[in-house]
Structure formats: structure tokens, C-alpha cells
């Protein structure tokens, strides 16, 4: 009995350091952030309590905030849509019995391992108007070079494409795991019954892969809402505010405009959005289990 009692507190001992770090660097700053969002701050005056004024300013007067929010919605729709389609396609291909399957699985995953800043800098060089590789290729075919990152519409397109390129491998791997969990006997039975590949995909693969697709959907949405480093290094939120997202808006408001209270308020808005998505995922997951 005494040895069982000794063993029961050991897990807590292992958890304690992580819990301490979590409380110090996540919980306390989060609580302080909520507190800060109720103040107007500046470096040469004490913070002034303004209640909900920061939130009112965000939603009623700050066009940069709305611009960042609308950019974010466009980005999320484009990014998540492409990721879902491409990662499913890649997973289906990688699930086939082809030569060098292991090599191809690695190749699609390599970009995920790269630092987002490295990815963005490489693509920034590649897309440079004057000396970028892409425009040099176009010139070789006598096609006029394009201002890929200097036109607002093109910049948004490339920001989405670069982010998809850098992250699709991760989601493809998740879907590949889901595909491999589908019993092969179902496909064999379908073949015996005369089902085509398309019918097998539509009636077997998709329904059984649906929970995994849903996980990929929610995870990719959360990642898309949090995007910062790729875009900051690739376009800096430009040209103008064409690719400015909420996290960058928060960074600019806090560190360039010295308005930490307003930045804290904006970060709370982002927190509510992401928390809602997480709750949705949890609720739908529970609903599925109940069914």
C-alpha cells in the first residue's frame, strides 16, 4: 500500500515544472493582457483606465483593424480551401503503392520542417520584381515581368500560396494516417461488387475520412488565423495594408504606435475568434461521438 501511495504523486512531480512555466508565461500574461486592454497606455504617462473604449475604437473608428480582419478572412478562405483540396490529393497519391513512396512522403513534408522566416525570404527572393528567378524565367520566354509582391491582389495570392506550400505537407500526413486506418477489406468488397474508383472514393473513403478531414479543417483554420511570421517576412503586410493580418496589426499597434492597451484589446478579439473555433471543434466532436 505505501508504495502505491508513493507512486501516485510522481506524475504530479513531473507535471509541476511544465505547469509552472505554463502559469508564468501563458496564464499570467493572458490575465494581464485582459487587464491592459482596459487602459490607454503611453511611455510618458501612467496608464489611464478607459473601460471598453479600446474595443469601441477598434470596431467603430480603426480602418486598419477592419482592413486586417477582412484580409484575414480572405486569407483563411483561400488558405484553408487550398490546403483541404491539396492535402487530400497528396494524401491519396501517397497512399498508392508507387515506387519511392517513402521519398515522396519526405519531400512533401520537408517544407514543414523549414523555419517560416527562411521560407518567406527564399520566396521573397524568388518573386523579386527586378532579379527574382520567376521573372527571369518569364523574360526568357519574352513574357513581361510582373510586380508579384508590389501589387495588392498578387501579393495576397502569393501570401496564400507560400503559406500553403509551407504547411500542406503536415496536413497531408494527417490525412494519410486517416486513409491508412480505413480497412482495405471495404475496398476489396467494393471491387467485387463492381464499384468504380470514383464510387469507392465517394462512398467509402470520404465518409470514413470525414472525421480526419474535419480535424484538418479546424487545425488549418486555427493556424491561418494565427499567421504572422510568413507574411511579415514575405511582404511585411504590404504593399500598403494589402496583406496585413490581425497579428501584425497587434504588433504594429503595440510596438510601432506604443498603444499597448489597444493592441491588448485586438489580441482579445483574436482570442475570442480562435477560442470559438476550438469550442466548435470540441462540440462537434462530442456530437459525433454521441451519434
Amino acid at each position, binding site marked *: 500500500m505505501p508504495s502505491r501511495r508513493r507512486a501516485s504523486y510522481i506524475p504530479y512531480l513531473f507535471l509541476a515544472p511544465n505547469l509552472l512555466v505554463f*502559469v508564468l508565461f501563458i496564464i499570467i500574461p493572458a490575465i494581464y493582457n485582459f*487587464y491592459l486592454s482596459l487602459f490607454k497606455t503611453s511611455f510618458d504617462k501612467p496608464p489611464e483606465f478607459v473601460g471598453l473604449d479600446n474595443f469601441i475604437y477598434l470596431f467603430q473608428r480603426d480602418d486598419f483593424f477592419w482592413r486586417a480582419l477582412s484580409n484575414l478572412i480572405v486569407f483563411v478562405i483561400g488558405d484553408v480551401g487550398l490546403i483541404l483540396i491539396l492535402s487530400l490529393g497528396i494524401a491519396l497519391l501517397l497512399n498508392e503503392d508507387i515506387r519511392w513512396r517513402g521519398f515522396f512522403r519526405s519531400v512533401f513534408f520537408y517544407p514543414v520542417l523549414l523555419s517560416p522566416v527562411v521560407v518567406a525570404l527564399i520566396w521573397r527572393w524568388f518573386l523579386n520584381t*527586378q532579379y527574382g528567378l520567376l521573372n527571369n524565367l518569364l523574360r526568357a520566354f519574352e513574357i513581361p515581368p510582373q510586380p508579384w509582391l508590389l501589387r495588392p491582389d498578387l501579393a495576397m495570392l502569393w501570401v496564400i500560396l507560400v503559406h500553403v506550400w509551407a504547411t500542406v505537407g503536415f496536413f497531408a500526413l494527417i490525412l494519410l494516417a486517416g486513409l491508412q486506418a480505413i480497412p482495405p477489406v471495404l475496398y476489396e468488397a467494393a471491387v467485387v461488387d463492381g464499384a468504380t474508383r470514383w464510387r469507392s472514393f465517394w462512398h467509402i473513403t470520404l465518409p470514413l475520412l470525414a472525421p480526419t478531414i474535419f480535424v484538418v479543417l479546424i487545425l488549418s483554420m486555427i493556424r491561418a488565423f494565427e499567421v504572422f511570421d510568413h507574411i511579415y517576412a514575405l511582404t*511585411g503586410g*504590404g*504593399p500598403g495594408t494589402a496583406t496585413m493580418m490581425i497579428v*501584425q496589426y497587434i504588433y*504594429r499597434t503595440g510596438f*510601432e504606435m506604443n498603444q499597448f492597451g489597444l493592441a491588448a484589446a485586438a489580441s482579445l478579439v483574436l482570442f475570442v475568434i480562435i477560442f470559438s473555433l476550438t469550442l466548435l471543434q470540441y462540440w462537434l466532436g462530442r456530437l459525433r461521438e454521441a451519434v
Partner: protein
Amino acid sequence: MKRLILFAMLALVLVAACAPAPTPAPTAAPPTAAPKPTEAPKPTEAPKPTEAPKPTAVPPTATPLKVETLRFVWFTDGPDQAAIEKLIKEFNAANPDIKVELAIVPFAELNTLLTTQAEAGKAPDLARVTEPPRFTKWLLDIKPYLKNKNFDKEFIPEAQVLVTGEKGEMYGYPHDFTLNAPFINMTLVKKAGLELPKGDKIAWKDWVDLAVKVKKATNVPYAFAVDRSGHRLDGFIQAMGGGFFTPDGKDVRINSPENLKAIGQFVAWHKDGTMPLEVWAGGGSGYADARQLFVNQQLVFYLSGNWQMAFFNQTIGDKFEWKAVPNACEVQCGGMPGGKFLVAFKTTPEKAEKQARLLEFLGSRKAMEQYAAESLFLPTRNDIIKEGMKWPMRNEDMNTFLKGIAVLPKSTYVDNYHPRFGPVANEVRDRVTQAITGELTVEKALENAQAKAKDLIK
């Protein structure tokens, strides 16, 4: 036992929860445009160092000399480090009762570091800063300890005011000056068979028209570029009577008719290809300079500042002929001041006289000339600005900058030294970028900037 462990963990969590709140993160935008770090210039014939006065002989029966250590926090832009270390060595040799220890810190950490140390009562004795008003409540009035009671009158008055208390206290002085000013590629100008405009009142349009002709004749991509910076833009619009703040500094005038005209021209030059989109539209959200375009001879005329001198001297050298030229002068002369201040913090009464002694030494004419010559920075003493000085390299260019300081209008100092200049300049910069990319018209961009700036100065 299980309960004991659980209680211990709960106590740990409570202690962590009661920890003091973290201080706000450091700001990133100083009101003065901090020069970018440059590479050290090639060794040249330096001015003769001041001879250290012979230490007075100490009688054998006297008590041993008590050496007071002064901690001096410094951040470096590159060439200044060697210059200040040399001066500190000379001072230490001439003042055996003082030992100055230089502590170099990264610029990005400077304000947070000094604020944290001062709050904890552990401020350094002296520091090199860009925003003296942040630290006023911790600064020492050195006037009672100075030999020269009119020492504060030696420096540029518009800058000195930033380290002067309400009752005339002297907390320090401006130590080095920066000036926004343009550079031109003379090799391209000569290749085009053209000459520089002459006279005292040359408008920006005159410079840019010349640059456009040179661009066409020599087939370089761009005629004119300006660093992506609200500080640089302010220097540009000042020549046309523009600016960010009203003369009394109490309000903003972002959407004034003068600014609309000046910024309208600035935006139009971007749209017609005279100026590169890569800098203002493609430069991201923060500061971006165009110096690489100038170094690579893709640019004829470049508005930046004297802090580029050491970098250009090192990277361009003799590859092509280039020179600094005066700012445009239309309604008034353009250009913007900037620079660093040396301040003393309140520490102990015993140290106060020694802090004043060091500051008086570093602010003396000889020391300041030596420092300016070795770092390719500009001095802040009125006598040097009036009489000029000799730099061991690029002397003509440095004196062009020096003459530019003398004709800087008061409005440039009002803007640059306003406590809210940094955020206001960033806002104007980003709004003008929106006008360049076509998101907003110039009028709407400046209207939005005006509204935000009014909020920022409240």
C-alpha cells in the same frame, strides 16, 4: 503524503500567480531616426589625440587616491564605438580618481534596460540615449557641478531644450547630430553630360528633374528614392513648408495644404516610375532604406542622411563618384535633425561632480571634434557648426551636412523632438504608403493620418 504534495503544488501556483506583472514590452520607434549600424571606416589619418595632462604628484604622506567607477551605458551605430573608447581611455588617464566603464548594449534593448534599472534604483551613471524625456525623473542636474556654468549654451539650442528642466536644470546635452540630406551619383550625371543645379534655393523638383534626365540618358532603373521612414518624409515636405506638428507642438497639421501638395508630388513620382515601388510599397511595414539601390548604381539621387557616409565610403569607395548635396530650399530649407544625447543619472552625491567632469570633457570642443572626425558623425557645438571643422575623409561632404544644420528651420526641431513624433511619423508613413499603392487617395490618406495623430497626442 498525497495531500502534502498537492498543497505544495497549490502553494507554488499561488506564488506564481502573485508574481509582479511583466513590464510592457519595449517600444521600437524612437522619435529621432536612429542611424543604421554601419561598418567601421577604413583606417585613415586620424586627428592628433589630445595629450593627457600629467597627473599631479601625490605626496607620499597623502591618503591613497579613491577611484570612483562610473558606469556609462552606450549603444553603437558602428564607427562611434572606437571613437568613444579612445576618448574614455584619454579621460581615465587624465583623471586618475575616476574609472569610466563603458557598457555597450543593443539599441533595441536600450530604453527597456535603462527604465528597468532606473526603477530599481540601479541606473548607470551616464548613458547615451535618443529619447531623454523618458528618463527625466531619474536624471541629474549637472549644472551645479560644472566648471563652465554656461556649458548648456554651447550646444544647438533647439536640441538642448530636450535635456533642460523646467527650472533650467541641465540633464545632459546633444552629443552627435544626424541630418537628413541627399546623395547624388556624379558619375551618372557626368555620363549624361549634365551639371548640378546652382544657387541657394533649389527645389526638390529641380533635383528630381535632373535625376530623371540622367536616368533616361544612362538607362538606370530609378531617378530618385527616399528611405521608407516618416522621419525622412518629414524632412522632404519641410522644404515646401510642410510638417507634422503645429509650431507650438500642441496640435498636428498632417492634412495641411502644404502637406497635401508635397505628399501629392511624392506619391505621383512613385506612380510614374521616377521613384521605386520596392522601397515604400515593397518595403514591408517598418523602416526600409534604398541604399543598396544607390550602391548598385541603380539610382541617381537618394535622400537619406549623414549616417550613410561610413557605409558608402566602405562599400562604394572609388567605384563611382558620389557626393552629398544640400537639401532642397523652397519655402524653407528641408532636412530633419536627429542624433543622440548624453545624460547623467542621479546616483550618489559623491559621484555627481565626477559625472559632470566626464560630460564636460566629452562635450569640449577638442573631444567633440575628435569624436566627429573619427566616427563621421556631426558635432552639436555651436562654435564648430559656425566655423566648420576638418574631417580626415569626405571632408567636403561632411561640411555640406554641417552647413545644412545651420539652415534647418525651427519646425524641424519641433517635429523631431516632439514626444509623440515616433508613432505619428509611423502613422503618416503607413498612410502615404496606402496612397502610393492606390488603397486611398492622398487626401483620404492624410485625413485618416490627421485623425489618428490627434488621438496619439492626447
